[in-house]
């Protein structure tokens, strides 16, 4: 679990509620190259289910998710 993932873009989604985390991720993914990674933090517990669902639907990949207290940190990779 301790290997570090190099992120091309960092995104702060803390304080945002549904549907904004998914909306912001969908906009931000266009700003990284194919194969690029976004590292994001959020506080909406809904992202635990929503980001994997978004990734599956859009053909991208959620690499990893971590909870640090109330903050959820996750990495998504652009696949296409």
């Amino acid at each position, binding site marked *: 679990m301790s290997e570090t993932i190099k992120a091309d873009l960092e995104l702060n989604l803390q*304080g945002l*509620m549904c*549907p*904004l985390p*998914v*909306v912001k991720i*969908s906009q931000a993914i266009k700003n990284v190259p194919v194969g690029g990674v976004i590292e994001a933090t959020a506080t909406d517990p809904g992202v635990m289910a929503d980001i994997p669902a978004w990734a599956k*639907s*859009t053909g991208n990949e959620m690499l990893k998710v971590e909870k640090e207290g109330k903050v959820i940190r996750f990495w998504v990779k652009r696949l296409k």
Partner: protein
Amino acid sequence: MSEEKKKASMVVFSGDMDKVMAAFIIATGAAAMGYETTMFFTFWGLKAIQKGNRTGKGFFGKMLGIMNRGGIDRIGPSRFNFGGIGRWMFKKMMSDKGVTPLAQLRQTAIDLGVKLLACQMSMDVMEISREDLIDEVADVVGVAAFIGEAGDSQINLFI
């Protein structure tokens, strides 16, 4: 998911704050997930895409325009509105929790390319003209145009 175009469409019949909110949340979510999304606003739902000016030409139309005045910020929840107190309370509770306000959610939908369509027949009945609707409305159409969109959609809702 296959390479077939992903599409979502919905009828927004309700002009209640809570239901319009649900409609825009689903629409923005669908757009974010790669669905080409269409919203068809009819009857009370037209309120969500009106500028908020007074509407109506004849006596009944003008009466309706007064009773139904205001734009998206003026609509109340389907329950517990109590003459506007409920609307105020829900807006406050939502803003305290960082939920996006309705007008901003509509703008997000527009920014994501959600197509807004208005129902010609309801507009004629309620005496609402194209100029009474926000400029971002893509077109004023009938049921066949909506069914055309809905027929290609994997997701279709009536709200």
